[in-house]
């Protein structure tokens, strides 16, 4: 009886499969139509982001730059000679490169031991430290600037250093900001590095340091180079931090563009500087791209087996000198460089004119002192959240599409070239001045042109501008995960009868979905903290939180400063909460940030 029932089911299954095969045979004649259809789908997937980038990035940037070079309808490049003839220009370029170089070098030197400690050893509380280290990276630049100023101010904990308003302060803040990039990029790579190569070197008689320098460090080079390029880019285009810490004495090309456009109203100089920055950014991106290719290749060669991290050995008979140095360096960085500024902001937010208390937080419901704000800080926070939701949706959709297209490995050479071109193009917003983007929006999206700041419709433009800034991060988070999917997994699904759409749905989507969680978090955090473009586009009656903070610290009065600290804590807490949520969704595969 039972076997008959089983046989019946089996018969039904065979019938269904036979029916499927019949439909398949009918489908065989339509080969060409299907190829065309597929081309249209992929064309759309690549076209939508391209149109978005063209309208909301290339067009504003080009129109801004063009303003500097087009006089009376004719091309006029005299601005170049004029701008490069000024000492100030050379000083700004020199400072930008110096800041970025020194900041990157220090971040790498401090970050590599951190990567080792947090990704190659295991100890109690490692997860907590890993999470804490990321906080600065996602903190809004304005908050970071305020934090460092509070530490280095004459009455701050490190006031005796006399670093307030100096080059050193800016570099320290840049390292603070980018330390996590090095730790995560290098650490994520290191965690998957086969330890047996180093073990082989040890067995051949190399002492630990020699084995590290001769075997492990060269293997890490692609990851370090990739991290360094990204950090350099972030440092060279830093805006909020430099604006808050450097004042008018120290600036980058980015702040100079801001000064020239908003303070001096000299669009020609700003356009020249934008071009300079574009050239620097393109050069660094090319270097980063090469390093990334090497890293992906090196990772592809690595064993997929999970490498277990040995316990941290600081003492006892098995203690390792490397562990001790890494722990010492990382301890100083985490407590001194990362912890102190964050702690100081928290402490200062609790100090009011009349002693300790939550007065500053209570003031968040007010508009500050006379003529300070048009809205309460809470209202600004709400605006920030709403804007961030819109920006995140846009960035994830656009960035997800780009990552999907770029992760394909088409057979035709031209298609492959197009794919890598798309990859490069979408990295550009990462380095192009957010100030340029924001200002470009103003003059290209609103006619009549000129400095008649018509802010109508800016509630739409702000999330779009923030999405332009966040999209490259989404791409770089999702893409490595998609690329790490073995192409034979796609083939296995196809052979089992899954068409291209179902391969996407059943193979790529389940794997990429987890990295999408992190991408959402990153996009949200970037949008929450975005200041460069937003400072141009925010309407006075609807500012975002970073804009409010910047206005508060620009006004005299201890109450305003106290409110700024409280607002910083609020913004930091919002960002950290979003990232903590996203981190839970993070998959084992490492993205780039």
């Amino acid at each position, binding site marked *: 009886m039972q076997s008959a029932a089983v046989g019946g089911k089996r018969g039904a299954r065979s019938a269904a499969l036979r029916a*499927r095969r019949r439909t398949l045979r009918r489908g065989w004649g339509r080969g060409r139509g299907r190829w065309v259809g597929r081309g249209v789908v992929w064309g759309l997937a690549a076209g939508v982001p391209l149109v978005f980038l063209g309208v909301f990035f290339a067009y504003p940037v080009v129109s801004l730059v063009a303003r500097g070079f087009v006089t009376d309808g004719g091309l006029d490049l005299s601005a170049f000679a004029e701008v490069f003839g000024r000492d100030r220009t050379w000083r700004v370029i020199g400072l930008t490169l110096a800041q970025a170089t020194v900041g990157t070098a220090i971040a790498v030197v401090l970050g590599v031991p951190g990567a080792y400690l947090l990704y190659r050893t295991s100890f109690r509380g490692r997860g907590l430290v890993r999470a804490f280290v990321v906080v600065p990276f996602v903190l809004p630049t304005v908050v970071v600037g305020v934090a460092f100023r509070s530490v280095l101010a004459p009455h701050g904990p490190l006031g005796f250093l006399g670093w307030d308003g100096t080059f050193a302060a800016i570099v320290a803040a840049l390292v603070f900001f980018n330390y996590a990039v090095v730790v995560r990029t290098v650490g994520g790579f290191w965690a998957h590095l086969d330890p047996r190569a180093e073990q082989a070197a040890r067995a051949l008689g190399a002492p630990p340091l020699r084995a590290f320098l001769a075997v492990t460090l060269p293997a890490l080079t692609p990851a370090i180079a990739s991290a360094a390029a990204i950090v350099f880019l972030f440092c060279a285009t830093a805006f909020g931090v430099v604006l808050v810490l450097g004042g008018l004495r120290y600036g980058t090309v980015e702040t100079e563009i801001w000064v020239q456009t908003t303070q001096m109203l000299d669009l020609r100089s700003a356009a020249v500087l934008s071009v300079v920055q574009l050239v620097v950014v393109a050069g660094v991106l090319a270097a980063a791209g090469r390093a990334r290719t090497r890293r992906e290749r090196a990772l592809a060669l690595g064993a997929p087996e999970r490498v277990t991290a040995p316990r941290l050995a600081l003492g006892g008979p098995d203690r390792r000198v490397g562990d001790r140095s890494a722990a010492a360096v990382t301890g100083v960085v985490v407590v001194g460089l990362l912890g102190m500024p964050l702690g100081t902001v928290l402490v200062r937010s609790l100090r009011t004119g009349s002693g300790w208390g939550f007065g500053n937080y209570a003031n968040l419901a007010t508009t500050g002192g006379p003529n300070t704000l048009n809205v309460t800080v809470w209202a600004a926070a709400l605006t920030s959240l709403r804007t961030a939701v819109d920006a995140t949706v846009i960035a994830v959709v656009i960035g997800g599409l780009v990552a999907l297209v770029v992760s394909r490995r088409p057979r035709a050479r031209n298609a492959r070239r197009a794919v890598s071109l798309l990859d490069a193009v979408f990295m550009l917003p990462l380095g192009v001045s957010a100030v340029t983007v924001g200002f470009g929006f103003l003059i290209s999206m609103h006619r009549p042109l000129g400095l008649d700041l018509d802010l109508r419709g800016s509630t739409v433009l702000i999330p779009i501008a923030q999405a332009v800034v966040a999209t490259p991060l989404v791409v770089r988070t999702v893409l490595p995960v998609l690329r790490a999917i073995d192409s034979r997994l796609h083939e296995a699904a196809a052979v089992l009868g899954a068409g291209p759409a179902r391969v996407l749905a059943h193979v790529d989507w389940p794997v990429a979905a987890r990295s999408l969680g992190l991408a959402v978090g990153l996009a949200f955090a970037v949008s929450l903290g975005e200041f460069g473009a937003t400072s141009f586009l925010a309407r006075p009656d609807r500012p975002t939180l970073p804009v409010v903070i910047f206005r508060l610290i620009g006004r005299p009065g201890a109450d305003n400063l106290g409110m700024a600290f409280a607002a910083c804590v609020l913004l930091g807490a919002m960002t950290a909460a979003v990232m903590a949520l996203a981190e839970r969704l993070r998959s084992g595969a490492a993205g780039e940030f």
Partner: protein
Amino acid sequence: MSDDAGQPFRVRFLGSGTPETSPGGGGGSGLAVRDVVVHYRDDDGTVATAVDGLSLDVTPGEVVALLGPSGSGKSTLLRAVAGLEPLSAGSITWDGADLVGVPVHRRGFGLMFQDGQLFPHRDVGGNVAFGLEMGGIDRAGRRTAVRELLELVGLEGFERREVSTLSGGERQRVALARSLAPRPRLLLLDEPLSALDRALRERLAGEVRAALVATGTTAIFVTHDHDEAFAVADRIAVMDRARLLQVAEPVELWHRPASRRVAEFLGYEAFVPVDDAPPGLVDVMAGRSGEAARSSRRPSASGAPPSPAHDLPDPARPPGPAVLALGPGSLLRDDAGTLAGTVVSSGFRRGVVETVVDVDGVGEVTVVEPSGAFLSVASALPGPGDRLRLRPDPAAIAVVPA
């Protein structure tokens, strides 16, 4: 993890091999590969010819092993049949219907990879059920089929297991079950056992054969291991450098390799032109029923047409000068033997003693003897430099065209 030693595949599943449900599809002619050329482009832009004008037929229900050294193009041919590599020339048909332009997922073929390529985000049951989902089988049907298939491959009750917890052998069993689930018209196996250790590989080869035969599945089994090919296949196709050298049943292939290259690949060690062979060898071969050696000295006047099967020369009657191929087992120790040689080395191998002997006028040949004879102290292993007398075993010597 210990369960690489799982149950052998049960044949019970096979009740489904009745004609109406047979995956072979009844009276069709099966797979026909004709003059196929596949170019392979490397990342650096260089183009190599991976498959060069190759033809092969596979009839329904048959298991063909595609045997060749690594880099010979056998995996590329398999991928071309699956639809994963485009053809530069030639055609691939199933039951006479051209498959060019038919995408992978509509061919109704299965493909099993060397490393399984299980879907990491699905459990064992989800992996096996994937092809059934794609085929539109309902949930109940899938559950029944998954249970039967896991039973077939000796993994009862593994439905909910994560694939990351499986051992290498278990993964391949799951991959086999997954490939068989949609009842492919043709199952392509790409070195499915190569990543496993030897003992497991040998046992699984037998079990894969049993599962294929039991389900009546038509299959092409790619391997570089001839033991595996002999264990699994009805016919063996030997491939080398993008071309097909010989297609034959296992016994035929072993005893009548079509060329010296095939013989070398199968493990034949010494090659002696008949004209130069020591008399002791020639006389023995001359007495062999086929009289291959003699006929090769006096070219046959019968003018028999060349074998129609892919123009491969008839190995029994090489048209030109012939060569005797000797391998392990071709020579036996015999104190009255007609051949003599100097011992090069010797050692134990799983119940036998293998002695490499440099035979006068022949070259180095491995002599195999049961190791039981060496248990008594008196008969120690031959040492290097010792002289031995040997007797050829004509049934274990192949005649190949020069």
